[in-house]
Every structure is written in C-alpha cells, then in structure tokens.
C-alpha cells in the first residue's frame, strides 16, 4: 500500500476509535434535538395556566375595555385566555390599604400581578405594575401593550375618531422579498435566508477552527512524543503531512456527515410535525435552500478545511508542546475570523468589487465565496476561478508546511520566531 494511504488510515482510525469521537458524534445531534424541541416544550410548560391579574382602575373607565381586549387578543395557541383580570377596590382614598392587601395576595400566590392605573393615566402615560418577578419582560411587555392599546383606543374614541378606521389607516406596509436567481424570481423570506446563510457561514467558521486545531495538536503530539523521527526515517515529510491532513479530514467528514444527516432528518421531520399541529406554520415561508447552495457549502467547506489544515499544520510544526498552541493558533485563526466579520459586509453587497476580490483570495474564499453564492447568483467563471485558486493554494500550502515541518520538526528547545520559520521555507 502507498505510504500516504497507510498514514491516512492510521490518523483516521485512531481518531474515530476514541470515546471522545463517539460521544461527540452521537451527543451533538441529541443536543441539537434538545435545543430545537426543549424551548417549545418549556414555553408550553410555563404558559400553562392563566395568570391572575388584579386591576386597581382609578380612572373608573378602563376595566371593561381591558376585559374585551384580553378576551379578544390575549390567548395562547390552544385558544385559552392568558390572563384572568380581577377588578380590585378602586377607591383612591383607601389606595394604600388596597395595595397592602394585594401585596399580601401576590406573596401568597393567589395573584400573579396587580396593576394600578392612576386617574391621570391619560396625561402622564404611566401606570404601576406590581409582581413577584418584575424581570419577566415577556409578561411586562404584553401588559404594557395591553394597557397602552386600551388607553389609546379610549383616547381616539373620546376625540371622536373611529378606532377601527384609524387602525386601518395606520396599518404598516411590509415588503415581500423575492430572490432573483437563474430560474426567475421566487418568493422567500429575507430574514430567514439571511439567518440561514449566517448559520452556515458560522458553521464553516467554527468547523475550520475546530478541525484546524485537531491537525495542529496532531502535529505537535507527534513532535513532543518524538514519534516523528521514526516516521521521517520511513516516509517523506510531504507524505506525513498528507497523512495527517487527509486522515483527520476523513474523520471530521464522517462526524459532520452524521451531524448533517441528523439535521436533515430533524428539519424535515420537524417541519412536517409543525404543519400538522399548527395551521400558522402552513404559511411559514420556508427558506428554500437550493441544491447549488448545499453543493457549494460542501465544496467550500472541504476546500476551506484543506487550506486551513495546511496552515494549522505549518504552525504546529513550529511548536514543541501543547502550551505553544495558544500562541501559534492566532496566525491561523486570524484570516478565519476576518472572513467571518467580512461576511456581514459582503452580504450587503455581494456583487461589489470589494466582495468579488476578497472572495477570490483563497484564505477568505471558504466563507466569503460561499456567502456570495448563497446570497446571490455568482457568475460561473468566478466560481471556477475561485476553486482553481483554492486548489493551487492547497498544493502550495501543503508544500510550504511540509518544508517547515521537515526543519521545525526536529528542533526542540527554543521555539523559532515567525521570521525564522519563513527562512526555513526558503532554504533546506
């Protein structure tokens, strides 16, 4: 068997066989499942049972309107009312005793919240909200909305305007977003598309760093355990590098493959379930991920992996021990970080000259070209050019890292500075 293949096999198998790998591969989908399902479950658990709210209406004319408002709008998914409004003693002269009485009831748990709507609420625009937990801003906001809607409704009708008419006239205008692709325009939710691209970009970003660190640690481990000298007496530096990068890459792909499968299953299953249970979900504009976006995601993830695996391996060849990793990871991480931040700028104008040029630089391509492709149709020649440049960069970077590796690998003791390492590339 070819020596590179033997090395790849060892690198991959020793990683796949560890407990950590097994746990990481299987646990992540479970966590994903929990993260998607748990918030929904928790919301239901928390919102179960209506909240009892006492209202001290010192104006004497808000209570009926509030009750109508609650029975009209404040309902949960199953149609049960969220709040039960209880009128409280509304005599301003005994307000203090009323408050003490209500306070006690909140403490005893018979009331969740009580509101004091002062007589001059129409002028001051303020009311008081008492609760055990004033940090529950979801409830606070909801009650704020309720009171302010009712107050403005009364204001409108008192000034002789028809609230319904005003509401109709004030209705906000919203844009439906259409994405223009090769096959014409298609309706799509702008926010969702952005969120999705952002997530995929974030994934590439994290995966590049994660697996890059693996490669770096692998190289440093071989150095610190001194295995490297036997390896070098049996195989060429380029074969060892190739073994490291491809072996770890293969292990990573197996892991990501399992995760990817889980995501696909979860989302399709999840959507089907959502449509069954909630009629609202029927109208949810599902962000359409085209085959091209998926393919380019896979392609640029793999290209990115090899580019950065080579960079991390080169940095690893300079170091001697685990503790060197902290400092050495930065030069490799910087371009990944930069491209992640540039991603936002590029999403705004994926067609501009800046975006075009940046996305063609191999160190930035994995994230930026993918962002451009998913946000907008990129001319085919640019994509092909980019792939070509990336492949060239990979070959070049593996060559460079093999050279640094060859010299740096036997140096123990003082860690060389970056300029020294650059000098190694030139000689040998």
């Amino acid at each position, binding site marked *: *068997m070819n020596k590179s293949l033997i090395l790849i096999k060892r690198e991959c198998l*020793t990683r796949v066989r*560890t407990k950590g790998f097994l746990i990481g591969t299987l646990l992540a989908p479970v966590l994903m499942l929990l993260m998607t399902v748990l918030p929904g479950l928790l919301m239901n658990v928390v919102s179960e049972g209506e909240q009892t709210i006492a209202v001290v209406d010192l104006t004497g004319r808000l209570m009926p309107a509030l009750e109508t408002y609650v029975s009209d709008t404040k309902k949960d998914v199953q149609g049960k009312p969220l709040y039960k409004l209880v009128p409280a003693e509304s005599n301003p002269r005994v307000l203090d005793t009323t408050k003490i009485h209500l306070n006690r009831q909140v403490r005893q748990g018979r009331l969740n919240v009580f509101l004091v709507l002062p007589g001059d609420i129409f002028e001051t625009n303020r009311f008081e909200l008492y609760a055990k937990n004033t940090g529950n801003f979801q409830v606070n906001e909801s009650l704020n909305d309720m009171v302010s809607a009712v107050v403005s409704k009364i204001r409108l009708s008192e000034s002789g305007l028809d609230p319904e008419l005003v509401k109709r006239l004030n209705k906000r205008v919203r844009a439906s977003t259409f994405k223009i692709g090769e096959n014409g325009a298609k309706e799509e939710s702008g926010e969702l598309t952005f969120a999705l691209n952002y997530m995929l970009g974030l994934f590439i970003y994290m995966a590049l760093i994660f697996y890059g660190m693996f490669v770096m640690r692998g190289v440093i481990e071989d150095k610190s355990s001194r*295995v490297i*000298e036997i390896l*070098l*007496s*049996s195989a060429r530096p380029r074969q060892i590098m190739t073994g490291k990068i491809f072996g770890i890459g293969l292990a990573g792909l197996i892991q990501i493959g399992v995760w990817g499968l889980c995501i696909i299953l979860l989302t399709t299953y999840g959507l089907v379930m959502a449509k069954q249970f909630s009629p609202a979900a029927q109208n949810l504009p599902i962000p359409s991920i085209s085959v091209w976006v998926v393919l380019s995601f896979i392609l640029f993830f793999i290209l990115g992996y090899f580019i950065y695996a080579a960079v991390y391996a080169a940095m690893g060849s300079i170091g001697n021990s685990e503790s060197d990793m902290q400092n050495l990871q930065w030069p490799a991480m910087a371009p990944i970080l930069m491209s992640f931040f540039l991603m936002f700028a590029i999403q705004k104008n994926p067609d501009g000259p800046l975006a075009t040029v940046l996305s063609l630089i191999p160190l930035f391509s994995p994230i930026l070209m993918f962002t451009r492709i998913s946000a907008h149709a990129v001319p085919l020649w640019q994509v092909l050019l980019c792939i070509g440049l990336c492949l060239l960069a990979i070959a070049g970077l593996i060559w460079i890292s093999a050279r640094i590796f060859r010299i740096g690998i036997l140096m123990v003791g003082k860690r060389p500075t970056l300029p020294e390492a650059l000098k190694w590339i030139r000689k040998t």
Partner: protein
Amino acid sequence: MNILSIHRVNKSFEAIHAVRDLSFDVEKGQTFGLLGPNGAGKTTTIRMVMQILLPDSGDIQIFGKKLEPALTDRIGYLPEERGLYRKMKVLDAVAFFGELKGMPRTRALEESRRWLKKLDLTEWTDRKLEELSKGMQQKVQFICTVLHGPELLVLDEPFSGLDPVNVNMLKDVMLELKQDGATIIFSTHQMEQVERLCDAICLIHRGENVLSGSLSAVKGKFGKNRIQMRYDGAATFLKDRNLVSGFDDYGKYVEIRPAANATPQEILKRAVRDVNVTHFEIAEPSLNEIFIQLVQPKGGKP
C-alpha cells in the same frame, strides 16, 4: 563491499558546524561503532544517513547507491529519543511501522506477533503502549526497528536507559541479526560495549573523524604499552615520575602509562613494595583511554 560510505560530508546549523569534512566506510556484515563525546555530531551524521537531514555538501552512499527515499525501507532505525504512539495498542503500533516500511499488512502482523513472543511481550499485545513500563516500551521500539528484516541497522545509543537484563537481551538479538547477515551501525559512549561488540569504529570529535578503522588496527596504532593492575593498598609509587608518565586509578584497579625509560619489570618491582598486587598485565590501551586521550582538551589531566 561498502554498505555505507560517507565522503567529505558537511552540515551546519546556523552558527554551529556540526559535521566537518567527515568520511568513513562501513563494510557489509560489520558491527560498526560510532563514538564520540556528547555533541560530537553522531546523531546529526545518523540523521543524514536516514535522510531526515540533508548534508550541505559531500556524498553519502548506501548499498552502493546515492541516497533516495526508497532505500530507507531497507534500513532499521532506532532514534536516540524514543517515542511511540502512546494511545495505540502494541500490536497495531508495531504492525503500522512495519507497513510503513513497505511490508504487506498480513506479514507485518505475523512478524509483529513473532517478535513480541520472542521478547516476552505476548501478553501485552492488546494493551495500549502507555500502560507498558519504560523498559517494555524500549523493547517494543526495538521491534519496530527490526520488524521488516533490514539489511542495515542504525541504532542511536541503543543501550542507554536499559537495565542489565535488557542490555544483554538486546546484545543477543544484535548478534543474531549479525549472524543472519545484517550490518549494524550504532552510536554510543559506553566503551566497554564497543570493545566487545564492534569490528570497526569511527571516533568523531567536534564533527570531525579523529580516529577510524578496524578495532585491532586502531589499538595497534597506540602500541601495546599499557599496564593494567589490580591491587590492595596505597599505591604511592604512581607519583614516581621516573616510572609512571600517566595513570587512571580506580582505587583497586589502575591503568598505567609507563615513563619513557621505565620497563614493566621495574614498575612491578616497585609496586610490590607498596601494595599487594593481585593482577598484572601488559596490554593495549583500552578504548576508554584512547577516547579520553583524543577527546580531552589539550593541557588537561594526564
């Protein structure tokens, strides 16, 4: 035929000239000792032979051919700094290094089992390397070196850190491989072993060849003019400059370099007056003495 031929090789690291115009030859079937003090350039020379480092100038030939990657498959290499994949199982690790030297997987596994049995490691076959004691790890490392039946063994300090039992075992295996036709080159600074094992040597000092050739020729060059003596008592006669020009005293054993005009008989006569002589021999200088004489800075102790 020369298995290894090194001709005027130079290697520098930044300011350090590690190997300077070094030349020596190793014949087929020889056991060859590469000697020298720490930092003399032994390991650098060995690494150049293994193509881990490239020489700056000069010429190295193995098996009569110029260095090329494929040739390393015919060499077994034991580096000075030992190291194995700690998390791998013994059998997997050994077979992996065999495969890396070009053995087919099945043969690599067979040979691994055979060698593990031979060195009493069978019960450790499926253990992880990190569970093994240091001595056992060294044995495993040695198996990795010889597994693929190399024609040439290059061992960098093979005996360092081994207990006497393992030293003996290693020596036996080396002899066995030699009888099977392998050539063995090893570096060391333990002169006793060299004296017992080697056919030829090269002594390197500050990167240069200061002495090389067959062991008998090397010793012949220094003449048979040493006295080795065992004794009890206080050897005050050693201070007598008319009799003794230099000595290496261990308290009960002493190596004496006689003064120019003194005969061994005179020295013996004088010695029996001081001490109880239990052993008296006229011999070649020991390799240890030659080593110290050549390597010690000029103007140092006698």
